[in-house]
């Protein structure tokens, strides 16, 4: 399949028009010493039907959430996508456009992004938000870089109850950028308040927690906040399960400076974890330090002074400020932001809360049923949202295999990221799981026991 429209004859005519005799003539600027003089060693071109057959077979090798009951969360959440979201998000005018440099013909994407920024503020309770970032983990990095400021030196205190992948990504950037990281340990599945108090000091640039944290537990943010706000320290919160915001106090209500997180699960397919949808929101005073694109409302210069939308505060950005930019971000996740915007509009004020209630209650039902099985113990007693940790009587991988044999995908094996947490499994139950699904899980777990 070729997407080059012009035929060989037409290309020859064009070449002749330019005074060339072959396509090769146009490659003379490429010195022979660097020319590739053999065909690329790649599989031959396939027609659409052949390719669909091939890739359909590859896709069929994957168990997916439409065909398999899964209790995996741990940073990626299965929330149902209303049909209306996908139909609208896939409109080709959105899909095939680029960064709206020419606002006169890009009002659709600009306005949708302005709506996205607003909704992020609405659900987080923060003042301003940007147009999206790659994912939650890099959004956290950007928040930390905002806190560190130009030069990027300083010390970041982060809870060990923050998603292990996020912490690993932050470590990588710390290596490159040259800042320090200290981790605060865990007590009863929550950030250890005593350890936090002992670690935070005048040298601390920012304190980072996750809410609900990686174990699904709800941190006592009111106790953490004053500690996190000692001196000039900034308080950063990461949110990986945005459904929680329907019921749980949002960062804006507990004096967070910068809130970041992941919104992929709102209207976008999981796609093996990415493309994801990082968000960043802050207090008003940090607006000009925000990374990435910002869309602002303005009016026509002349004419009817109609309201319109533009990319704004671009002097923060790499294409203008180059080495002095607030970030190197160019590409973001606009199309996913459109999806999340439509999702949140469709879910609406009532639906947002109901979603959270469904997740909360179903997870607690599952928790009760599982912990009623002899040998399956709750790992913690802290309050949780839609994820919880169970200590199983056997290793998590053993449990996982038995669930797999029953056609289920179980929870996340915590020993992978938390050495010492043997037999600990992080289960997630969102609104997409029915009572029947949960009861089946419990039934199989009982057999594990036996």
């Amino acid at each position, binding site marked *: 399949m070729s997407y080059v429209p012009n035929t060989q004859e037409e290309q020859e005519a064009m070449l002749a028009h330019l005074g060339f005799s072959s396509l090769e003539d146009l490659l003379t600027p490429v010195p022979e010493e660097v020319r590739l003089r053999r065909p690329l060693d790649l599989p031959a071109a396939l027609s659409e039907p052949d390719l669909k057959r091939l890739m359909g077979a590859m896709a069929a090798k994957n168990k997916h959430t439409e065909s398999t009951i899964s209790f995996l969360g741990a940073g990626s959440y299965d929330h149902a996508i209303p049909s209306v979201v996908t139909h609208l998000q896939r409109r080709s005018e959105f899909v095939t456009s680029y960064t709206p440099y020419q606002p006169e013909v890009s009002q659709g994407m600009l306005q949708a992004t302005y709506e996205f920024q607003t909704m992020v503020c609405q659900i987080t309770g923060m003042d301003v938000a940007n147009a999206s970032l790659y994912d939650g983990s890099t959004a956290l990095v950007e928040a930390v870089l905002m806190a560190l400021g130009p030069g990027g030196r300083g010390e970041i205190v982060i809870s060990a109850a923050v998603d292990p992948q996020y912490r690993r990504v932050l470590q990588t950037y710390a290596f490159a950028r040259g800042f320090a990281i200290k981790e605060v340990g865990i007590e009863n599945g929550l950030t250890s308040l005593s350890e936090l108090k002992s670690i935070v000091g005048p040298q601390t640039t920012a304190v980072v927690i996750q809410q609900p944290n990686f174990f699904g537990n709800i941190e006592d943010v009111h106790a953490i906040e004053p500690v996190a706000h000692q001196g000039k320290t900034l308080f950063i919160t990461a949110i990986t399960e945005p459904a929680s915001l329907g019921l749980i106090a*949002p960062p804006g209500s507990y004096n967070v400076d910068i809130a970041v997180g992941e919104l992929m699960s709102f209207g976008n397919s999981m796609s093996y974890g990415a493309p994801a949808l990082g968000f960043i929101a802050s207090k008003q005073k940090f607006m000009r330090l925000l990374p990435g694109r910002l869309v602002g409302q303005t009016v026509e210069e002349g004419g009817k002074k109609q309201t319109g939308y533009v990319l704004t505060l671009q002097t923060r950005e790499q294409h203008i400020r180059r080495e002095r930019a607030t970030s190197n971000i160019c590409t*973001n996740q606009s199309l996913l932001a459109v999806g999340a915007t439509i999702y949140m509009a469709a879910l609406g004020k009532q639906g947002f809360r109901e979603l959270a209630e469904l997740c909360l209650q179903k997870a607690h039902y599952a928790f009760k049923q599982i912990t009623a099985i002899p040998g399956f113990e709750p790992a913690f007693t802290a309050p949780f949202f839609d994820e919880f940790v169970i200590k199983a009587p056997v290793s998590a991988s053993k449990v996982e295999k038995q669930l797999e044999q029953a056609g289920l995908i179980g929870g996340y094996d915590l020993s992978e990221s938390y050495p010492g947490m043997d037999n600990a499994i992080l289960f997630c139950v969102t609104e997409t799981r029915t009572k029947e699904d949960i009861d089946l899980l419990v039934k199989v777990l009982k057999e594990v026991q036996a």
Partner: protein
Amino acid sequence: SVESLIFEKGAPGRRAVRLPAMDVPTESLDELIPASLIRQEAATLPEVSEIEVVRHYTHLSQRNFGVDSGFYPLGSCTMKYNPKINEDMAGLPGFARIHPLQPANTVQGAIQLIYELEQYLAEISGMARVTLQPSAGAHGELTGLMLIKAYHQSRGEGHRNLVLIPDNAHGTNPASATLADYKAVEIKSDDKTGGIDMEHLRTVLAAHGTNVAAIMLTNPNTLGLFDSNIAEIGRLVHEVGGQLYYDGANANAVLGITRPGDMSFDVVHFNLHKTCSTPHGGGGPGAGPIGVKAHLVPFLPGPLPAKNDDGYYWQDAGPQSIGKVRANLGNFGVLVRAYTYIRSNGPDGLKHVSESAILNANYLKHELSKDYEIAYPYICQHEFVATAQWQKDQSGVTALDIAKRLLDFGMYAPTTYFPLIVHEALMIEPTETETRETLDEFVKVMRQIAEEARTEPEVVKTAPHTTVIGRLDQALAARKPNLRWQPGQELTHA
């Protein structure tokens, strides 16, 4: 015509989505969450019905221009046609609805796709291995610089703190250097050839060679010119112990023709949303895989896909790995599209992509040269830079004006005022997927605009005239930023 905000629509109690009924016994909220941690005020999300959602976002889409709407000659952005089969493959439930933490045996097809795509990209770039983890070109740049940093440190050369970057480079290059805690050093372009000023490069290397960590280049460069000194540049930088980073933004010009690896680059990033036809989505998502030579492989972020007799699996990164640059495994949905594209085209098809992109660019350059100054009048590769200098001198019509006027004819505008070294730059990249008729139509319109600039410049200076809205007040937007709607907000500036 104005489309009001979704927040201004609807009415209290309206809703689109209905959620499933609660099918489990419930407990009171207070018993589950401490009162102080419960949300007090509901988020003020819209209250709208399904038909309102549909009409609103349909209208917004109708107020947006994409490649499917018409010609999009945005230089450096490679706005080529996005094949529909790519979307269908990415939408297969077996690809779209899988969780990143699923056990490997339940996602064999996904890992296979990643494994094979890595091999294809390694072959295309002439590199030893590729990581598909970075989310975008700039992310790839940063990751590449981290690898270079780790490499130098491993050799006890952690002091190298300079990254050389040509004055016509993409803005992401210096920004990424800063982010990786490097100091960006600008290398001049040769006024005549448009390539690297070799003398300046030699001078910088002589003065600072031992502190040079890397040079970042794109070739063809942002002028659309292939720097034929590339091999010599490679030798010079390698001689002083520096690494060569290839900015793959312009890779649509080199497929099957030359490879960054063969040009002596040590690291390369791909912009799959440019070169491999995955849609730009209004600014993203993209994907920025990076390929590296063998000496950098130990530093790659992990995990990496691997294969044994039992099938495909994820291999943890080794001890020298820089770690991870994002959660999970890379923009899989984008990777599926890129995989589809490479398999659709095959080796001959990919080479034809680049040849055709180059032909289309040279054709346009030739046809426009009567009416517009061409910054560098040589054979270009996939793009070239014209200017509005003649028009500006003559009647004050600027590159911006010309860009706006183009919108009136149902075409998007070229990239303007970039690269920075060209005044009144109009950077034009037609891509290989445009027909000769479309190119001719663009030439005709550009000619008309040039004529208007001579005879009735006001028409151009006040353009656009046929779009849903006229030029917007950027200064006001920046002076009084309004970045979100607030309940009760009047249209601030209306």
